[in-house]
């Protein structure tokens, strides 16, 4: 027990990897067990996540190893280069960790029907989870980078092998795009390393010595920004996202939108903010503008889409804009709203992609105009989808309202005009979601779909936890806000002054 408590984070990170190895080692004949192994090795981290949620001290704030980061594990890994195995979480990362732990089991549930190359699929998926968890726990930049790259590879194969008709194009686009970001990150990382004495990748030390990087601060910031902006994705680096989503299998879309997009914003907050505070402040208006562009541009593009999955992908771009706007505002409301929005977007967009997958499995297409009147045939599916759409358009009482309103409220003080422009996003959001409901579900039922089966229990099971979370966090978001309030307040005061 002691051992478990001391290595909670490592366990969360590597349990899925153990599962992956198990699957690889088992013979192909025991294929049916793969799902169950994947199920268990994603559920265990979820249990640990709950434990972390309970044990997490909500009051400490700081950015050093003694003050601020919790559940710390620190060992020397490659002594020659002063590289450490250094894990730890604070109010910023815990939420992302919880989100990852939550979404992965649901994704396994959503992948139950995969019938091609089970061994590869599930082992790669578990490897991906290890990568994601690792990124959110790492406090050593080198380790962070390693996990970042660990995510990349399984993602490439999962899209490229199990994806739709244009999967190879999408996978390569995704891979190359992200790689460009990685390279920039690598260069900045090396610069950090060589500018500290003694050389280190330890993020807490880099934060302490942030004055060393003042010279090239703006360039470094921008290089990192491009790397992270590709992930978020920020206009104009976003076009890989719709392609990747359209081709990726359902569960992978969920992970992509639910967790991977958060990596970019997380990276900015974890690395750029505290290590390059002056440059961050300098670029804050720029960040806010990019956020507003994302919100409005993404919403307009979403409105024009004909493919349901592309629509959700563009809505993701729009919703991630709120994250940028909120964190650029340097108000506590804004920055808390931004991180909460990352979490809420994770749950809501996961619902949306699972729902798109449900109808795709049945109708074998995703053309919005190809449907019509489904409500009378599949009422339960319609109800859940309408719920998810209303969550997406930020209906008060559901979780995204809390985060969006916090972002806008926070940003309003600094960027009044931009916030008002961003506010039109809530009108456009209503427009494209309602229009989609109308075209897909309402009106007369097309005879083609007279036999369409309604959503089944397994699918409901993969959505129910998300529905509950979206409602609960809409009415009672305080437990989650309490998790991050102290850390983000500290970050805000350190960087924003």
């Amino acid at each position: 027990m002691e051992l478990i408590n001391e290595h909670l984070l490592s366990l969360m990170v590597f349990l899925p990897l153990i599962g992956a190895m198990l699957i690889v080692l088992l013979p192909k004949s025991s294929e049916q067990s793969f799902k169950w192994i994947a199920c268990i090795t994603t559920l265990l981290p979820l249990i640990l996540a709950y434990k972390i949620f309970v044990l997490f001290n909500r009051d400490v704030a700081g950015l050093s190893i003694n003050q601020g980061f919790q559940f710390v594990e620190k060992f020397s890994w490659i002594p020659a280069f002063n590289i450490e195995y250094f894990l730890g979480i604070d109010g910023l990362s815990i939420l992302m960790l919880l989100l990852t732990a939550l979404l992965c089991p649901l994704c396994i549930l959503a992948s139950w029907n995969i019938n091609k190359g089970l061994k590869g699929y599930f082992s790669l998926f578990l490897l991906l989870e290890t990568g994601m968890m690792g990124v959110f726990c790492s406090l050593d930049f080198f380790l962070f980078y390693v996990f970042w790259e660990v995510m990349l590879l399984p993602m490439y194969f999962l899209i490229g092998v199990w994806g739709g008709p244009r999967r190879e194009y999408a996978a390569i686009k995704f891979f190359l795009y992200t790689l460009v970001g990685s390279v920039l990150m690598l260069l900045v990382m090396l610069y950090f390393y060589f500018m500290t004495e003694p050389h280190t990748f330890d993020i807490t030390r880099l934060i302490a010595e942030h004055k060393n990087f003042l010279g090239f601060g703006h360039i470094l910031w921008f290089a990192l920004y491009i790397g992270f902006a590709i992930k978020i994705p920020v206009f104009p680096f976003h076009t890989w996202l719709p392609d990747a989503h359209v081709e990726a299998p359902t569960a992978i879309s969920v992970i992509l939108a639910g967790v991977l997009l958060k990596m970019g914003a997380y990276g900015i907050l974890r690395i750029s903010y505290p290590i390059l505070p002056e440059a961050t402040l300098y670029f804050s208006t720029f960040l806010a503008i990019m956020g507003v562009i994302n919100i409005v541009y993404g919403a307009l593009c979403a409105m024009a889409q004909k493919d349901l999955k592309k629509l959700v992908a563009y809505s993701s771009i729009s919703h991630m804009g709120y994250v940028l706007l909120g964190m650029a505002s340097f108000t506590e409301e804004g920055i808390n709203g931004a991180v909460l929005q990352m979490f809420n977007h994770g749950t809501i967009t996961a619902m949306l992609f699972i729902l798109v997958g449900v109808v795709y499995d049945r109708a074998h297409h995703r053309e919005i105009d190809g449907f019509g009147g489904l409500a009378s045939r599949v009422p339960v599916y319609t109800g859940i989808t309408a719920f998810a759409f209303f969550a997406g358009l930020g209906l008060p009482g559901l979780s995204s309202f809390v985060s969006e309103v916090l972002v806008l409220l926070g940003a309003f003080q600094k960027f009044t005009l931009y916030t008002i422009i961003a506010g039109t996003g809530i009108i456009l959001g209503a427009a494209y979601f309602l229009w989609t409901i109308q075209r897909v579900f309402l009106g007369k039922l097309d005879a083609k779909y007279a036999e369409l089966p309604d959503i089944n229990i397994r699918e409901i099971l993969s959505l129910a936890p998300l529905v509950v979370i979206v409602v609960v966090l809409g009415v009672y978001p305080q437990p989650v806000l309490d998790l991050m309030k102290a850390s983000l307040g500290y970050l805000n005061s350190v960087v924003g002054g």
Partner: protein
Amino acid sequence: MKEFIIHYAHIILLFPLLGFIINGLVGKFLQDAFGKSICGIIASLMVCASFALSLGIFCTLSELDPRSRLFTITLFDWINVGNLHTSISFLFDPLTSVMLLIISGVGFLIHIYAIGYMHHDSSTWRFFAFFNLFIFMMLELVIADNVFLMFLGWEGVGLCSYLLIGFWYKDKANVIAGNKAFIVNRIGDLGFIIGVFLLFWAIGSQGIWTLNFAELKEYSYLLENLYLGNINVVTIICLCFFFGACGKSAQIPLYVWLPDAMAGPTPVSALIHAATMVTAGIYMVTRLSFLFILSPVALGVIAITGAVTAVFAATIGFAQNDIKKILAYSTVSQLGYMFLALGVGAFSAGIFHVMTHAFFKALLFMGAGSIILGMHHEQDITKMGGLRKKMRWTYYTFLVATIALLGIFPLSGFFSKDQILWSVFSSPYGSKSLWLLGVFGAGLTSFYMIRLVTLTFFGRHHHTDKAHDTLHEVHESPKVIIIPLVILAMLSVIGGFVGVPHIFGGSNILQVYLSPVIADAELNHYPMITEVGLMLVVFMCVLGFAYGAYYLYSRKPSRRAKLIERFSFPYKVISRKYFVDEIYQHLFVNNIMRTMRFMARFDMVVVDGLVNFAAFLTRIGAYGNSWIDKVFVDGLVNGIATVIGSLGSRLRKIQTGYIQDYVYVLFASIIFILLFRFMIA
């Protein structure tokens, strides 16, 4: 009992929520198992329970000392971050209790009515689930104790409105009307939320971080001298809030959704789009009256918007033939009156009119619903006529409601409308010209209503040609529909007595009851004769227009045709609703659609195009590189190899293998070396 209510009054929300959950989750099974009425009965009982509790709250408040007539119930923190502290907490004061009584009381009657009206529908469970959800949201809206929580109910009722307008979703027109309602409301909501932000930061800049009504009221004076440029911040805040109210309460320029909203089932029109939801804007402004009173400019804007809307919408009512559309424009117009009242600082008069209007307008809609049922879903009044004899109960109740709406003594509408017009005349914020507009609007109201009544109930059945027997088939509605009509008719008659003006020897009970919450503007004093004289003027005006309508539509229809012919252009403009929908379509919708298509193409062609172009360039580069590699780099390597090879093959020829050749070369070399040495030496 009193203790219980002070601590648990918020369970008023629980009943309709429970009804929503029951009907939403298992309503379909209940409906299949116990018949269609069961869902309606459950829903009605829930609202009835809420009504009972509203009465309890009202009594509890009445027993308290007038100065301390309020209590709050706080459940838990909602959003508590940085400077923002909001909690899920509820405020009960006289204003709230009046609204609660209206919502749950009228709501209960309409629920009963809906059991009858929706009897033939196949998914009553869905209808009553949404209906109860609406009651929940509306109650939440009025008991919320802070602006954010109010916004929850505010958007929530919008959601229910959307769901119920498009209730018969198989017809695309209904769905589009629902979308329009929601989106137009959202445009207003943007104003609302910006108002909230501005208020939050403005009052925060004075060191008070709150969005709680009670605290805002206490500290609102801090805002008085804040300026943004030349404009008082309070004015901007109030205008933002008012823009939100324009959306919900269907005022110019955002009224366009309400007439379309009539696509929903008639009980929905009665409850949501006449009696309750559309008055949310009035409630909100009244709730924030302490802010609005600080800004004469904002009050002026409200008064003018209200008056203009009242007249504007009434004129559209002239030339509509759909019975529900006429009533919808009438609602827009009456809401205009309420805003006119608010705009002159007569907040309690506005709430008074909310109440009486809830009675008679709900009754009008329900009567219209009864007619529609009786006419087998015919809504065109030009195809009706003579219904007086066939539908007696409907006729009498409808007539009562019409008289109440016209504001004829002593029915309820008289008292509330009179109070509004008198306030407009005598308030320091009011003016004579606004009063004239109001009187003119009252005349117009009387015209379109008498036109409606005449065409519907009087004369002969207009449908003589093809279906002389449709009239025989017209039937009076069942009791479950008639009883609510009768109760509402009684309320429409007596509802005004809570606000009898002083000149009739009454004391304005409602105004006194509301006075701890609402600070009405002090009215200027005029001699009694003025007040009575003005009443008579209004009465004559109403009567004149009423006779005009009766004359044109019953006595001399031929005159009517001539008039229309003569004024064909204005008539066309009116009957096409001033082309506002077309103008909006052209100005906003089309442009947004164009922008969106442009953006999507831009994204695909330019942004993604650049990415693919970069990829293309890289590939070209790669090909070029590989060519260079092949030709030059590899070429060099191969070249060297070739040179060495060919050199070797040539040199190989020297190695002939004959010993003589080698001896020749040896000698030749020795001679060459010797010669060389001699030459150098």
